[in-house]
């Protein structure tokens, strides 16, 4: 069965955006852009035609993302901040399942199928799983959706790209978790000068 994966860049102090994130500053106003320095660590666009320029271990991480995921789950705030990806998700124009109470009346038209899910995280992940087929489901954030998915025990794996920066404020990823103690199994770790790639499997009770 397909895996449900959290895959995000996070600062050492746990933030996925600096303070004051909005449409104009999707990663916040104070250093949040350093969370993605690793996307731009090389000189060659990769995959071709994108704005990403990862190299070495960073390129492998981007390649894995493109190869692995067949559907994305996102929160409404993330959808609003990125303007609905202009209707085309950057990764393979994959379908996106957006958790919201009030679907927008006029979503952007593009190559991705944008699905608005009003009946909860479990339903969003179920639908994404069906759409992803053999591929895995990417729970893309924001933090609130990630927390809901973790609290509901729906996550199989966490891929954290740990950025070497202390942001001191912003949007905390692993906060408000309603867990007593979740044991993880650490997978391989890959280091570059701009990020440390960490992988964990969630141990099932």
């Amino acid at each position, binding site marked *: 069965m397909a895996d449900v994966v959290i895959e995000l860049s996070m600062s*050492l*102090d*746990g933030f996925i955006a*600096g303070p004051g994130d909005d449409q104009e500053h999707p990663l916040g106003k*104070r*250093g949040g852009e*350093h969370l993605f320095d690793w996307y731009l660590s090389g000189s060659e666009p990769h995959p071709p035609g994108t704005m990403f320029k990862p190299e070495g271990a960073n390129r492998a991480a981007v390649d894995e993302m493109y190869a692995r995921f067949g559907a994305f789950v996102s929160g409404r705030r993330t959808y609003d901040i990125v303007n609905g990806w202009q209707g085309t998700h950057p990764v393979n124009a994959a379908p996106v399942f957006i958790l919201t109470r009030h679907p927008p009346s006029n979503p952007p038209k593009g190559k991705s199928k944008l699905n608005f899910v009003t009946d909860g995280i479990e339903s969003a992940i179920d639908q994404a799983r069906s759409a992803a087929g053999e591929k895995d489901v990417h729970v893309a954030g924001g933090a609130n959706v990630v927390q809901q998915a*973790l609290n509901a025990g729906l996550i199989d794996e*966490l891929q*954290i790209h*740990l950025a*070497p*920066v*202390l*942001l*001191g*404020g912003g949007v*905390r990823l*692993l*906060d408000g*978790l*309603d*867990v*007593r*103690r*979740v*044991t*993880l*199994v*650490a997978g*391989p*770790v890959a*280091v*570059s*000068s*701009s*990020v*440390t790639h*960490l992988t*964990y499997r969630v141990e099932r009770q």
Partner: protein
Amino acid sequence: MSSVILDMAMSLDGFAADRDSVSLYPIDDLRGIEALYKLIERAGAAVMGRRSYDMARGDFTGYEHQQPIFVLTHQPPQTPARGLTFTFVTDSPESAVRQAKAAAGGKDVVVIGPSVAQQMLRHGLLDEIWIRLVPVLLGDGLRLFDHLDYGRIRLEPAAANNTRGITNLRFGVPIRTPAGTPATKGHSS
């Protein structure tokens, strides 16, 4: 030159201790962690907060850092703990680091405890950050990197490896100039 090194265990969700204030990883579980032994070898003195000091319950016999310990506290205890030499520093983190460096005799100074770590970061006193990232989500507890609302600090990744599931992370902390632009310190790590 001696470096000031923060050494802490942290859960993936950022806690140094759980909600019952139990330290994240007892020393017994850390036997065989090479990074810890390297640190013990390098260190000549330690600075810790009152919470870490109290956790030893008055007896530092067998404590991993068998070195002079400087405890940053507003209220020194009437009777110091057994096992090591303690100095209670009541004036400032700078003073604790200065005294610990003098005692370390050219070796490094280890910093232990979330509150002290935060004070050291705010005052720009750390040279390196060593994190033992423990593969667990605690959900609640004592956060290691909290109350750091002074702006961002970019770090220099120095090394990372896994030992029995624990990921050992090492970072250099660049000097922050008054203008806020980082300059490279050039310490070896």
